[in-house]
């Protein structure tokens, strides 16, 4: 992404966030509003500076951006959301196992075949087992509960 475009987006984003918070907090008393209000004003000012800089063309150097495979990136986010939703229904350990196995199989570089599914299953069992051992057996820290466990 070019420096100019990045500046424009960052500037607009900070102004939008500031206005959102400002609108939400409009009915608060002065005492609880003062600190966020200062920040909102600051963000609007900084946002304006960034937008101006973006429009004028920025001299700022951008680090070399790596090539990103957006399908894979979004897949991780989507799978994580499904995973979190599943935790509520079928419990933490079962969904972790399924998530770890399937996603690591799907993402692995050796091709999606039976042996790699085997490795992924093993990996899923191993990590789920390690989580179970540390969180439940050793520390007794509760994990989210669902129908299964």
């Amino acid at each position: 992404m070019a420096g100019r475009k990045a500046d424009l987006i960052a500037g607009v984003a900070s102004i939008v966030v500031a206005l959102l918070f400002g609108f939400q907090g409009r009915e608060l008393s002065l005492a609880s509003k003062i600190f966020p209000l200062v920040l909102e004003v600051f963000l609007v000012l900084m946002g304006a500076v960034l937008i101006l800089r973006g429009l004028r063309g920025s001299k700022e150097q951008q680090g070399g951006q790596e090539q990103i495979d957006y399908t894979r990136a979004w897949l991780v986010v989507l799978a994580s959301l499904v995973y979190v939703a599943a935790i509520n229904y079928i419990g933490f350990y079962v969904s972790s196992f399924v998530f770890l196995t399937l996603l690591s199989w799907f993402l692995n570089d050796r091709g999606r075949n039976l042996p790699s599914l085997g490795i992924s299953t093993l990996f899923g069992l191993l990590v789920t087992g390690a989580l179970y051992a540390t969180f439940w057996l050793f520390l007794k820290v509760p994990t989210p509960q669902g129908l299964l466990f």
Partner: protein
Amino acid sequence: MWEQIGAGLINALQPFNLFLAIAGLTGGIIIGALPGLTATMGVALMVPLTFAMDPASGLIMLGAIYSGAIYGGSNSAILINTPGTPSAVATTFDGWPMCRAGKADEALNTSLIASAFGGLVGTLFLLFLAAPLARLALKFGAPEFFWLCIFGLSTIAAMSTGNVFKGLVSGALGLLVSTIGLDPIEGVPRFTFGYYPLVQGIEVIPAMIGLFSFSQVINLVGSRQKYIADYKPNPGAFMRVVRKLWKDCKMILTRSSIIGTIVGILPGAGGEIASIIAYNESKRWDKNPSRYGTGIVEGLASSESANNATIGGSLIPMLCLGIPGSAVAAVMMGALLVHGITPGFKIFTDSGNLAYTFITSLLLVNVLMVLVGSILIKGTARVLNVPTSYIGVAVVALSIIGSYAIRNSMLDVMIMIFFGLVGYFGSRIGLDTGAMALGIILGPIAEENLAKSLALAGADGSVFKVFFTSPISLILIILTVLSVITSWLLSRRRGGDVKEAVESGRA
């Protein structure tokens, strides 16, 4: 006093106590390395076990867990760019670049030795200067805390040289987000956007896990890298690091440890603030500050020695005044009270045997930590030999359970994912996740102390008197101004370089 220290050392060296120290360290390091499991949680979970032990043994174990957990946070910070505890945020700045450059072994050993060093310095202060330092802690009121936060925030400007505007925007966004929840003055819900459960506020840890680790996973998986970083076991890294630290970092280690101890003494400020301040100070005094953040031993050594030094510091007011300097110290004080031991200046005379055993055992724990840590490092570094597809997926599972565990809230898990996306897209438009995390950490402390200071100013009838007359406040204000000016000069110098480069490129 020397006699008592000797007697304490003999007590601490008993086989059972040594065993407890080693077990506590191992458990502590694992807890610390797992994001979402904090030192406080680790110590609180083990307190019931100590009821059955004699008080000294119990304290030795808790002290070992505490030290291990604060050090352990650096492991995940270095290896997967995820601070295992909030006090390891500054460790990611140089630790992660070192790891990516294939110097994971150096980084892990640096953090281990620096942590042990910091821990020792903090404990020595506890041993010899507890009483005067406890009195110093009381001089630190709301205005001083407010300025300390501002000083901490000024590091944003220094952190993001060359990109100051976006650094400031990131910091301000973090601060603003931290105001979600109940406000600290009137207790009314703020910025819940119509969704009541948000009243619990944005907890630092899930936000941090999202910003650093979840966003990192998206990035790694998206970039199709086979491994997180090149890694070949590097025998002899330990000795090389020792020589390097001895040659170049004596000053840095000492200064950072002293900063850590002092910040640790203050109730309400802990390793997360100490390590950031220490990092920034090292950077500022360096001949070539722009090296910082590119993966250098010095940066890592500053943050890691500072956060372990806070341990000794936080125990000073706890033992002397009954005022814990950190959440962990508070839990440990509970354990003391159950054994019928009342903290106070008299603890060194009334329960001298116990007090000195505990303090000398902490010295021992820090020495043992080098041993236990260097064994564990050999295993943890192997994480880098696992292909990204597996590690990335495992980190997602860990991030989710870690954000849940901090207060058993699924909402925190969603917050973690949200901040993961913010971190991912934010860094693509040049926002600084470190600055944002800093804002989220310092926001509540800054606002609370600002509110208290204003209330005090109302009673005294003078804002000026409250904010600008105490010597500590003045020192902090001067330091803040210095920090901003130096980073401005720095960015001008660098900006000049860039301009020249661009122009010479054109010509």
